[in-house]
């Protein structure tokens, strides 16, 4: 599955626009909680809604079975996060969920979990949200700044509070290292 033509360039522009609205510089770290506030989205830890023991039990049966969910309650969007995740992973999950909202993805697909129907997004929209979430956290200007300081994915992940997996994905797919070397 591929992203629509022009999606990546638009994502970079949109990420920078949102950062400007948050008064963030090009190389500042994005706090996803601030972005959620800005977008008028509540973030709630799942342990405020259900017991932590149940979440831990689910995690024991299958790690990463549940990461996050966006509920629509009385016309409001509420992102529920899993408290068992690391801070970096939580940031990725929230960025992903907020991306669906920024990209105005509709909940058009029905996914059944044990007979309970849930309305969710299409698979291509999932891919778009993942790409946009990464762009929000680590836009190109930020990555270029990091590469000029000779940081690799590990240092980028540590400095900007994201998972190393996300830092590596953005580092490799944006070609920033090659761009800096070429100068």
């Amino acid at each position, binding site marked *: 599955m591929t992203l629509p033509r022009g999606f990546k360039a638009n994502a970079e522009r949109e990420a920078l626009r949102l950062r400007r609205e948050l008064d963030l510089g090009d190389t500042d770290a994005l706090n996803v909680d601030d972005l959620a506030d800005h977008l008028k989205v509540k973030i709630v830890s799942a342990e405020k809604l259900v017991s932590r023991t149940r979440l831990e039990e689910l995690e024991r*049966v*299958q790690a990463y079975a549940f990461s996050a969910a966006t509920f629509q309650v009385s016309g409001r969007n509420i992102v529920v996060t899993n408290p068992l995740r690391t801070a970096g992973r939580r940031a990725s999950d929230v960025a992903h969920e907020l991306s669906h909202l920024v990209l105005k993805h509709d909940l058009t697909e029905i996914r059944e979990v044990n007979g309970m129907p849930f309305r969710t997004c299409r698979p291509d929209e999932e891919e778009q949200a993942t790409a946009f979430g990464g762009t929000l956290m680590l836009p190109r200007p930020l990555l270029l700044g990091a590469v000029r300081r000779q940081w690799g994915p590990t240092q980028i992940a540590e400095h900007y509070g994201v998972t190393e997996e996300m830092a590596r994905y953005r580092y490799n797919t944006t070609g920033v290292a090659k761009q800096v070397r070429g100068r």
Partner: protein
Amino acid sequence: MSCHCSGSGSPPGESLRQAAVEAGVSFSTLTRVEAGAQPDLATFTRLCAWLGVSPSRFFTPTATRQMSPLDQAITHLHADPRLTDDAANKISSVLRDLYDALAKEAVPGVPALACHLRAASVLRPGVPQRLADLLTDMNTELERLVEAGEL
């Protein structure tokens, strides 16, 4: 398929020429398609990529057709060269009877929960039950908190 390539400020021919370069098709081909001619498969694919749309979008009737698993199975049976029409009909009939008798009702009366879920794509045994219960309880508690003005 029709392209509307006339850009503002530049002559239409120039915009079309630019569009042809961007899409990776020849100018004359794009002109013909613009005039309503059917493109060949290679041109069609390139134009779809350039427009950023899925080729399936132009085949709406087949793309949006909803088939139940039973209908899919029966279609496969009728397409099987080893089966005569009569044999395919007999097996289909047995399948329909079995399906009617054994398929569970699709959760009658339960409205779909509006919930975008970020979870593992493949769930191990024991997970769906726990996850469905958790999500349902989360939704109920969120509704209570919103109703009570605590969120």
